[in-house]
């Protein structure tokens, strides 16, 4: 297990030390890209901007958490007659239209998977597949252990291996297991690595292509 980083006076974690993030932000790989495309599902913040300033890049910020939670609530309300897969893809594509016609090399998912109703996972996988490069890497977290406290967190980059937790508000989220997520990401994408953190969340990296899965 990986422990959390610094904590505030009331014992809330202030930062997260990530084992997998350095594999996503490997400078030798990022520097090879002439125009790095970065997709951030989280909220814009100065720390993440400052980090990517090192690279000639385009950073697309979606600030999608609240939008996706609202949408998931509407999906839940329609589950007596669940929307079709194509309808779900259409709705999600419209919500995330800021993604544009780009393919991204790095995707910060943060806690996005847990903002999605289970019925929305396939649509999310479909949208993600259409917007990533063949050698992309996506990084995020998901609730793993039962009873893990559920928060709407605002995370930002402090360094290649440390994230800051800027705000967190207690909200009910949607828990999924790794198998469900991988089924939604198939056939082109998969959770390639996972590291269980002390707070009950799984840090994961999503990649495209066939690679040997490894649970650290």
């Amino acid at each position, binding site marked *: 297990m990986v422990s959390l980083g610094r904590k505030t006076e009331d014992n809330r974690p202030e930062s997260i030390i990530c084992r997998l993030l350095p594999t996503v932000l490997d400078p030798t790989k990022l520097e090879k890209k002439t125009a790095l495309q970065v997709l951030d599902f989280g*909220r814009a913040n*100065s720390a993440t*901007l*400052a980090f990517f300033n090192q*690279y000639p890049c*385009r950073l697309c*910020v979606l*600030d999608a958490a609240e939008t996706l939670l609202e949408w998931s609530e509407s999906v839940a309300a329609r589950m007596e007659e669940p929307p079709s897969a194509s309808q779900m893809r259409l709705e999600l594509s419209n919500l995330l239209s*800021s993604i544009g016609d780009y393919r991204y090399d790095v995707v910060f998912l943060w806690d996005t998977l847990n903002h999605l109703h289970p019925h929305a996972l396939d649509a999310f996988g479909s949208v993600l597949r259409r917007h990533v490069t063949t050698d992309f890497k996506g990084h995020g977290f998901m609730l793993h252990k039962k009873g893990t406290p559920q928060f709407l967190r605002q995370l930002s980059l402090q360094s290649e291996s440390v994230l800051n937790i800027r705000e967190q508000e207690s909200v009910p989220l949607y828990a999924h297991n790794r198998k469900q997520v991988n089924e939604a990401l198939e056939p082109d994408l998969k959770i390639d690595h996972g590291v269980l953190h002390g707070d009950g969340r799984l840090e994961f990296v999503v990649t495209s292509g066939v690679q040997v899965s490894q649970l650290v």
Partner: protein
Amino acid sequence: MIGAKVKVKGDIVASEDLLVEGEVSGTITLSDNELVVGTSGRVEANINAKIVRIEGQVTGDIDGSERVIICASGNVEGNVSSPRVMLEDGGRFKGSIDMGSTKAAVAAKPTPAPAPEVHSIDKAG
């Protein structure tokens, strides 16, 4: 200055600095000057200026040839292109920030230009 009770629809082209506290929809072009969208300013326009400072709301694409500053009270939805983008904590932004295109354009000039940089401002000021 466009005051808080003024609404402008159309294209604004100016060769002096401009403060917008009212509402503007259209385009704003101040090629060699600074645009400030004040705390009560509401702009739905594509903006082209040397320096763009946003304390209010902007929906549209922003091209800042020198820098773009999104202040703590600022809220921007659109695409930003500038060699220097500054985001104060608390400022909201949705869209893309292109830190490469300006660099590429400047790099084509014979004299070397400073690399694009983003400055962090950790406290609202």
